[in-house]
């Protein structure tokens, strides 16, 4: 499967069967999912499941076509391989056009949730909405068309604390009208001439090394690297769930949209705090990045050099004042590529993940003092960020508003 990845070096994007794929860890995956499933005045679970079904249908259809897999049994085998390769766990079971019951082991979401919250919360509801959507998408792509099947999680490991989950798939009476993925979206024509702030960190050398790492699901279908539990997720899953979440909030009450934007920004902040915090404490960082670091600002550069290796697009630190301020340009951000292919325009900057991620990179370096290797947990997070005096971000240029690239600032307050 690694051979099927396509690295678009100028744009710093990674494609798999026509879909952009990006790395994120379970801290972000869980936080974003919880953000969307929690409000009971919208159908958050429906957003998560349907989006997964749509995006993974496109991915699987692309895989079957590209690899010329025609037989149903071979398609199912490939779908299971792909599920594990992407880091979601292991999906097993016998299938037929009438449906099937699938066993999910080592679920990324269920085991991730148990590891993060299992000692303090007893979960009452299933968590594997992505796997439910994936299972329906697999049946759609193998036996029919998008929207022909539906799925339900009947046993969830995060609830039972057992060793597996069960997902039941069955055909629907009438095909649901679902929307396939926009694929790579509206990518930039060519990289913009953006000047990077002075640094000894060699972004491009790091990009090449990290792109060359054979990061794939292990025997359990999990990706462990940089001290975190990773997934190689189709970027459009994140994009679709976050923008549909905002659409749903706006439909209930336009005033709720601003709250939703704040929550997605917070998911970006949580992501960078935990993901990059753990990355910066890993052997991988000490081996590949730390030898290039000469100043405190190089820690931030190192973070963006890694970020631009994750399939997120071309992230460039263009201005930084130690412990005070930074300005980051993203040329061809994965959020914007999707947004411009899906929505006509935006009255405000719409890269909500990046709006949270950029201040978080300053916070992890200058408020979290990551060089001293703190224990990264919720106690530290709450101590640091519930008292104020941290960096706050703003999107100051937006491709989704007609600018040639997106730009973000983070300022100490």
């Amino acid at each position, binding site marked *: 499967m690694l051979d099927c990845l396509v690295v678009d070096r100028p744009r710093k994007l990674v494609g798999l069967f026509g879909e952009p794929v990006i790395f994120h*860890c*379970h*801290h972000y995956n869980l936080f974003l999912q919880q953000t969307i499933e929690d409000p009971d005045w919208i159908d958050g679970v429906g957003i998560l499941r349907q989006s997964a079904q749509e995006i993974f249908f496109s991915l699987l259809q692309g895989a079957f076509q590209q690899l010329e897999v025609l037989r149903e049994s071979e398609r199912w085998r490939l779908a299971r391989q792909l599920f594990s390769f992407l880091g979601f766990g292991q999906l097993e079971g016998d299938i037929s056009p009438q449906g099937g019951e699938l066993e999910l082991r*080592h679920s*990324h979401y269920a*085991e*991730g949730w*148990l*590891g*993060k919250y299992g000692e303090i919360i007893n979960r009452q509801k299933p968590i594997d909405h992505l796997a439910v959507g994936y299972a329906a998408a697999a049946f759609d792509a193998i036996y029919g068309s998008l929207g022909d099947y539906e799925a339900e999680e009947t046993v969830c490991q995060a609830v039972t604390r057992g060793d597996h989950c069960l997902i039941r798939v069955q055909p629907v009476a009438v095909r649901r009208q679902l929307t396939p993925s926009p694929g790579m979206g509206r990518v930039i024509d060519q990289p913009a001439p953006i000047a990077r702030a002075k640094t000894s960190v060699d972004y491009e050398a790091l990009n090449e*090394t990290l792109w*060359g*790492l*054979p990061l794939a699901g292990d025997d359990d279908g*999990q990706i*462990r*690297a940089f*001290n*975190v*539990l990773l997934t190689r997720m189709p970027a459009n899953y994140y994009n679709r769930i976050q923008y549909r979440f905002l659409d749903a909030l706006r439909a209930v009450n336009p005033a709720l949209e601003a709250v939703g934007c704040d929550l997605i920004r917070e998911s970006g902040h949580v992501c960078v705090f935990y993901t990059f915090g*753990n990355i910066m404490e*890993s*052997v*991988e960082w*000490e*081996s*590949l990045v*730390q*030898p290039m670091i000469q100043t405190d600002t190089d820690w931030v550069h190192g973070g963006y050099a890694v970020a631009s290796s994750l399939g997120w697009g071309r992230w460039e630190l263009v201005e930084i004042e130690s412990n005070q301020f930074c300005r980051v340009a993203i040329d061809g951000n994965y959020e914007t590529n999707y947004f411009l292919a899906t929505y006509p325009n935006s009255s405000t900057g719409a890269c909500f993940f990046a709006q949270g991620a950029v201040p978080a990179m300053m916070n992890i370096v200058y408020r979290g003092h990551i060089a001293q290797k703190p224990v990264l947990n919720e106690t530290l997070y709450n101590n640091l960020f519930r008292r104020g005096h941290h960096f706050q971000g703003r999107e100051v240029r937006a491709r989704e508003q007609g600018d040639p690239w997106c730009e973000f600032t983070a300022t100490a307050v």
Partner: protein
Amino acid sequence: MELHLLRRRECGKGWAWDVDLPRSLTLTELADLARTCGGTYRVFHTLVWVELPGGRIVASTVAPRMTLRLRQQHDAILAYLQSLPVAADSA
């Protein structure tokens, strides 16, 4: 050489061992570790993955630290590391 061990809860499930070493290991030593423990190794610039039957060691030729994600073989690996000389050039 003397080792400092930290057993740490992994994200998600399971445990990892972080091993602080008095110096970084040479590629020759890491290759020998892999061979001794019945595994192989892969090099990514200064990062080295030692692939063993029981899991993976993430090691470095420039950083004096490694992370063990193994279901077994801990004792054999720690014994190997402890047998190494403090200075690489005396190996």
